[in-house]
């Protein structure tokens, strides 16, 4: 077992465990911190897939910004415990769990069956990757972003503007004791 393989299993383990932590922890702050851990693990997985820049963006945006916001809001509300972490209702609960289970089973099954059928081409896939050779991923990324998908890029700029305006408007809405004005 080479280091790379070990690394993958390690990261996959971390991802799944911290991901389970998000869902299973009763205290939402622990959930948030687990999620931050998941984000960082996912960033590491991006690195193993040679998406270096995106790994950095993942950490900056998700772990460094979005999750900080989550933690901040949770602390703002001071929600230490929930009286009841999970939804009630035995029948719907069963359906929900069954749905999730079947879905993951289906996808996992599909992926493994689909790719073991195509598995004999695995070596070819690998060599094709080498040939395609994303030599400088950041350069490829910027070329695709600023030359081919420039409209999406500008549209996202506008989207962010709209969100900024919208959240300010939302947070200004009156009501409750936490509102300042």
């Amino acid at each position, binding site marked *: 077992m080479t280091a790379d393989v070990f690394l993958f299993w390690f990261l996959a383990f971390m991802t799944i465990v911290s991901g389970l932590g998000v869902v299973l922890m009763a205290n939402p702050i622990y959930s948030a911190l687990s999620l931050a851990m998941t984000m960082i693990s996912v960033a590491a997985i991006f690195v193993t897939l040679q998406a270096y820049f995106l790994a950095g963006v993942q950490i900056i945006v998700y772990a460094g910004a979005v999750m900080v916001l989550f933690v901040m809001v949770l602390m*703002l509300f001071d929600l230490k415990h929930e009286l009841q972490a999970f939804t009630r209702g035995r029948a719907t609960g069963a359906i929900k769990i069954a749905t999730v289970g079947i879905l993951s089973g289906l996808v996992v099954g599909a992926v493994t069956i689909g790719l073991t059928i195509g598995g004999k081409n695995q070596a070819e896939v690998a060599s094709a990757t080498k040939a395609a050779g994303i030599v400088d991923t950041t350069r490829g990324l910027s070329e695709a972003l600023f030359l081919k998908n420039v409209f999406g890029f500008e549209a996202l700029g506008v989207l*962010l*503007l709209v969100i900024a305006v919208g959240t300010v408007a939302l947070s200004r809405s009156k009501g409750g004791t936490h509102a300042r004005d």
Partner: protein
Amino acid sequence: MPLGGVIFITIFIATFGVILIYLARWTGGRAKKTSQAKMDIYECGIPAEEKKDTKISVKFYLTAILFILFDIEVIFMYPWAVNFRHFISTGAGPFVFGSMFIFLAVFIFGLWWEIKSKALEWD
């Protein structure tokens, strides 16, 4: 990318920190509860009280939200900045330059709006 190294040193430092904590606990000993006041949180000598609705300004989380949004816009500029000379050399310079300036105009408009609407005022 030396991912292994990063993970190694992370685990190393975390272990190091945990060991230090335990070391200090071992050398200094755990705090003995000689009085309730000792174990209370520090509130300048006034008996600590816990209220459910501590008033904390919404501004904090508003700042965080605005940070996220602007941070992403900054992140968008990174791949542009790093390949800007490359773009110029391939002749796509004016296009990329123009598209980023439109993006920046939106950015500046957003910032201007936030300042104008007093979303960033901390009385």
